[in-house]
């Protein structure tokens, strides 16, 4: 393939020897072999590091596509993150180190966190939240957002965090799909020194829904109608009485919605037992986090990366997790590096789009700060282009003198790193890395047959692991579909990849109509239906075009209703409309008005053609094109 030629096949970037020698996981090949040969022993051993109210009787039961882990065991992930760590002497250790958008710092210790989670859980229980109930959380990246997640799970209820950048229809759809009993929402989020109003979005989204709402009010204390409550009052007005609800290992911990090509978001379900075990395993072995490290994941609690690596895995392992609200280049392009210097961050987990942003600002920004503490930068969310990897390696970890840049690939459905470059192996620019322990990955053709090394194909997983999703909320058929798309009882990731002779995978992009904008999965169908819901629009088609920063940007082709005339104002109105409906991340960066859209004879829009035209490429087989 073309991309393949761009890669210098022989290029190897190594972690410095002292980092390799201190790696938590020394013998990667042996670990990997054991994880596949003896998955019960392998995962069972790691699982026994945690507290089980009732020990599990069996590590796993596969009846693909169904898989269940730690059968018979009862536990609670939040109990393991809080009580267990407080009891082993970490009460005064900083659990969460929060940097607010205005530069304020707040540290919460494990002891304080436990106290607050118990209070909030008591308060939520008084509002009627019980085991199994769904609580939707629409909160900016704050300690309170995390408290809301933990308190919900503490009670055995199921949280569903909706990224506070998503718009009205996205929020409403998720609340309805989850069948939420309660919404915990922020009134405002801050970015670049400005408040972004969330209250009106929430109010519109919940119109006529019989839903209790707890408001985390930072902008101002509003007079709340009946059934609406103030977060701080619920928190501090409740005694720390609640105790963790011990649940079955397979009891849902959370639902997290992700976009598909069909238009309807899928509620990916993760469970207490396996998720706890798997995400922590990778925190220690892939992210190489030590007990006294400061671990900084630059994501948001609205995404799976935030769930696993801001909240659950670091807290479960008793380490210090740093979280920061706001943009990476605000107030200046050195903002990230100032944080690394000030808090001596040891391991950082960020996204390729951020790396590309730093590239744009130039190496002089990181050079101004003391980054000597930084040992590992993990990058995931979308393919990390070789230039970005080389740049990060060169300028963020002293060309490998001090640390390592570890690319990795995974999905909401997979809970934790699946392919990646462990720091004992060399990084190859353009390759995400090898299959990590517990993972059996393959590149296959549409018949499910492996393709030769170097050739592109569908990326599939041949076996499940503990932290892999269990179902799609309310739509188990959709779950089964993941496993039936490609023959051979394999999990189809929906991504296209190639694999080299050494087992390194290069992930090339989506196989379906899903865009990856700055690491966020956005269904083209979502954007199209948002556009069509505008009164001026008759039809719309959306494609992704390459973007130097975001990886992909959204380009929309719009056919107007009769009587509407194209104008700049209309473009702006359309953009504002999508922004409102879906949120800023799904906003088209370009809108083109067309008279008609290319369609197949069956009436399907040929996005492929639009894309080919856009990129000046051969559009391929156009036999189905409507005249």
């Amino acid at each position, binding site marked *: 393939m073309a991309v393949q030629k761009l890669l210098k096949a022989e290029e190897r970037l190594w972690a410095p020897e002292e980092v390799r020698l201190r790696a938590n996981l020394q013998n990667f090949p042996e670990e990997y072999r054991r994880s596949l040969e003896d998955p019960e022993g392998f995962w069972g051993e790691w699982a026994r590091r945690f507290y089980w109210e009732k020990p599990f009787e069996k590590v796993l039961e596969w009846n693909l596509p169904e898989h269940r882990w730690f059968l018979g065991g009862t536990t609670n992930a939040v109990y393991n993150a809080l009580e267990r760590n407080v009891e082993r002497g970490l009460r*005064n250790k900083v659990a969460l180190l929060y940097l607010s958008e205005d530069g304020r710092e707040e540290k919460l210790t494990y002891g304080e966190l436990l106290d607050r989670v118990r209070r909030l859980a008591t308060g939520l229980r008084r509002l009627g939240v019980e085991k199994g109930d769904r609580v939707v959380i629409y909160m900016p990246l704050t300690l309170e957002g995390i408290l809301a997640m933990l308190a919900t799970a503490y009670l055995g209820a199921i949280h569903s965090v909706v990224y506070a950048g998503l718009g009205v229809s996205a929020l409403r759809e998720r609340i309805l799909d989850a069948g939420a009993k309660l919404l915990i929402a922020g009134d405002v989020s801050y970015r670049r020194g400005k408040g972004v109003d969330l209250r009106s979005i929430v109010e519109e989204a919940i119109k006529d829904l019989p839903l209790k709402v707890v408001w985390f009010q930072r902008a101002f204390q509003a007079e709340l109608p009946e059934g609406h409550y103030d977060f701080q009052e619920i928190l501090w007005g409740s005694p720390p009485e609640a105790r963790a609800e011990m649940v079955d290992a397979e009891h849902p911990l959370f639902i997290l919605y992700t976009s598909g090509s069909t238009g309807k978001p899928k509620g990916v379900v993760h469970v207490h037992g396996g998720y706890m075990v798997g995400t922590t395993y990778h925190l220690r072995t892939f992210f190489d986090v030590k007990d006294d490290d400061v671990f900084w994941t630059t994501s948001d609690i609205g995404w799976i990366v935030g769930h696993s690596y801001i909240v659950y895995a670091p807290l479960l392992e008793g380490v210090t997790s740093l979280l920061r609200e706001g943009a990476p280049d605000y107030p200046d392009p050195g903002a990230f590096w100032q944080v690394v210097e000030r808090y001596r961050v040891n391991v950082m987990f960020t996204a390729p789009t951020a790396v590309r942003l730093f590239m744009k600002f130039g190496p002089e920004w990181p050079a101004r700060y003391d980054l000597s503490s930084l040992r590992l930068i993990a990058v995931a969310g979308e393919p990390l282009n070789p230039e970005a990897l080389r740049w990060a390696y060169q300028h963020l970890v002293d060309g490998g003198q001090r640390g390592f840049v570890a690319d990795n690939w995974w999905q909401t459905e997979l809970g934790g790193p699946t392919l990646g470059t462990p720091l004992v192996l060399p990084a190859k620019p353009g390759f995400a890395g090898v299959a990590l322990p517990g993972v059996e990955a393959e590149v296959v053709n549409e018949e499910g047959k492996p393709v030769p090394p170097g050739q592109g194909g569908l990326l599939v997983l041949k076996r499940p692991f503990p932290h892999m999703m269990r179902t799609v909320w309310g739509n188990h058929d959709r779950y089964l579909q993941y496993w039936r798309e490609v023959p051979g009882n394999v999990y189809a990731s929906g991504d296209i990849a190639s694999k080299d002779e050494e087992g390194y995978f290069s992930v090339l992009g989506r196989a379906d109509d899903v865009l990856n904008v700055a690491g966020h999965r956005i269904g083209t169908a979502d954007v199209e239906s948002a556009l069509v819901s505008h009164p001026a629009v008759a039809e719309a088609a959306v494609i992704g075009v390459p973007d130097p920063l975001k990886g992909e940007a959204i380009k929309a082709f719009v056919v107007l209703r009769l009587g509407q005339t194209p104008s700049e104002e209309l473009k702006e109105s359309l953009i504002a409309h999508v922004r409102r409906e879906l949120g800023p991340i799904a906003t088209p960066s370009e809108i083109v008005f067309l008279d008609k859209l290319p369609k197949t004879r069956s009436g399907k829009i040929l996005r492929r053609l639009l894309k080919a035209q856009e990129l000046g490429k051969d559009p391929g087989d156009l036999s189905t094109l409507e005249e």
Partner: protein
Amino acid sequence: MARKRSLSTVQAALRILAYLAEHPEGVEVKEVARLLGKSLSTAYALLNSLAEEGFAVKTERGYRLGQAKPLRLETTPLEEALEELYLRTRERCYLALLTPEGIRLKTRGRQGQPHPLGDTLPEEVHALALGKVLLAYGALSLPPLVPRTPYTLTDPLALEAELTRVRESGLAAEMEEYAPGLSALAAPLFGPGGELLGALGVVVPTRRFPFAFGRLARALSEVAQVSAHLRPPEPPSLASPLEPSLQVEVVEPPCALKERANLRDYPGAYQASLEDPEGFFGSFAREFHWETPWERVYDPATHTWFSGGRTNAALNALDRHLPERAQQVALITLDGDGHLEKWTYRELLDLSSRLAGVFQNLGIKRGDRVALYLPTGLEAALSLLALARIGAVHVALPVGLGPEALRERLLQSQARLLIAADGYFRRGQLVPLRPVVEAALKDLDLPVLWHVRGSTEFLERASEGSPLEAVPVPAHHPLFLLHTSGSTGIPKGVVHGHGGYMVGVSWAFRYLFDLKPGEVFHTTADLFWVVGHSFGLYAPLFLGGTSLLVEDRPDHPSPAAFYERLRRLGVDVLLTSPTVLRALRRHGEARPTSLRLVGSVGEALAPEVWRWTRENLAWPLDNWWQTELGAPALATPLTLPAKPGFVGVPLPGVEARVVDAEGRVLPPGAKGHLVLLRVGPAHMVDLLGGESPWKGGLYWTGDLATWDEEGYFRILGRSEEVIKVGEARLGTAEVEAAALTHPQVAEAAAIGIPGEEGEEIVVFAVPKKEVPEELKALLAEKIKAHLLRHLGPVPPPRIVFVERLPRTRSGKILRRLLKAELLGVDPGDVSALEEEYGGAKAS
């Protein structure tokens, strides 16, 4: 020791007779009952039996002393010698008395120790140390030599040689007494004419004998020497030897606290600390990092600790805990502006080692003194740690000190640099300090490093320094100089060192204040007092703990805020002062907190306040110490029952006594001067500009105290704060404690002013609620009557109502000032006065 021992009938009778002798006018039954702490019927029964024997006579006003002379009263001093020996050694002690009827044996010892002997000496008396003494001085003829153990001397020549040694040394020792595994020491007792009265002995398990020998020999010889004079020829300098005003209540600590206490066996620890300081404090000290190990743990002659050892306090406070505690919160700071911040061990190490670099650039070297005029907070904590790091000596001066006092202390301490804040918060108000500092520094060539409030300048500057490693210094190298608070006049500069101080405060933090790993500690004392140094900063960090530092007054803006803070931050152990507790008590019921223990230090904790604390906050832990001592010396450890009003017992390493003005040991119940024979490792290493408290081998604390038979001490106030009314000597603290038992009194201060019979007692009382003018006279009468009930027969005191009492910033009442105001004379140096005091309003 821990158990309350009830009075035996004989002792009770002896006490009654002594009391009758002092009260020729007659004594009522209820007085006797109160004296003994027994019921009226018991008192009746005792008095009746004494009357039957002719020792007492019943009159119209109770009882008087009878004509009959009790025979055994003569031997009382010797029995007190036995008691004294027991109190000093806490071992089983024997007294052999030569009486016309033969040798009578008396014994005294704690339960659980062997007591195999009867009232008479066994035949094989030569096998006992006690017997050897009697043999050596010819009180016995040589009996048949029956071996008691394989080690018994049966060879007459060997025995004679042994007896010669006894005569030469005045001590007899027996390694294996009447049974293997028991050793003993004994000494003769001589009368005033040099005649042998008997012998005094002490028994310990053989395995402890080598360690205990020195201590026991000293105790024996001292007690044997003074025994004949134990009852002083004249009445003691303080009137009644007995303490009638306090109803002693014994309160058992809650089981949950006792069972989980870090120090389970106080008596064992105490004994070990005295017998084997090497083993006891040495093994604890090994937890810390020593660059060079010490040669000797304790030198009793000079009271120096860990000589030869090299270490550094800052290294042990910070570096020692990394990387394990890198992300643990070390300090939580709440500044007067309401900003709450948490600082991890890594951050403190990073910032303080960089600040050390800044100091080095300013020319500060090892041994240099650097003064601080900073409020409680991160900047002060970092400065102390940074100075300690480079071996410089920090001299923290209380903020709020006036320009004159500040200047005086800067000159006295020869500071090379002053670190000063330009303001501090009191009750939410920012009080400017720059004018004070500038006035104090007028014409002085002293550089100032400013901490500008409201800016991060100081921290930014600190973070620009290049980090320095900690410099190992000898254990006695000065760590800090602190001026003792000025309730008594000219301030003295107390110097503490790196090594012993570290061990002493850490021991108290873990074993007295009972901190467990992961708990949060808070002292309301400002960082610039010794309590702040020892327990706000150093001890918590030495042991890897977490300490909360608060700049403003604890009850600002309200006591509710104080309770809320304790609750939210999960404070487990609080160390505060009776002043703060009284202030909280004034506001009524407390709110629930997570407190487990409340330490109280600074002045005597009145039983009323003790009870309030117990009911409203948590188990009170009274403790007594001084700036010179660095860490608690007397206290009630968690496993012992508390006696409200009594501070407690000596802590490991400390030996305490109550003596008269000449240094003679007074028996339990008598009022006298509190002295220490031995002090713990946190004892000062130097004293500047003052008289040493050590005189004649005793540390004179300057406090008045009594002790009871179980070795519990009760602090009665400073010896210069004694009121002489008629024949009676009353400590100000005891008058105040009595006043506080009145339900209307929130705070009280007592002074003596010249009056008709010596001095007149004046009590300044802060009423709990505002009292209408017309009711004041009535309330004053009620309090007066209340005081008379508690204090016994003294001229009626005068009551003055005030809104608040003048206190030093460390919370001590400035009685000097009250006196001066009342008499209209110059109050002298009041630089230590808390700024809010507006003068007493007499009414």
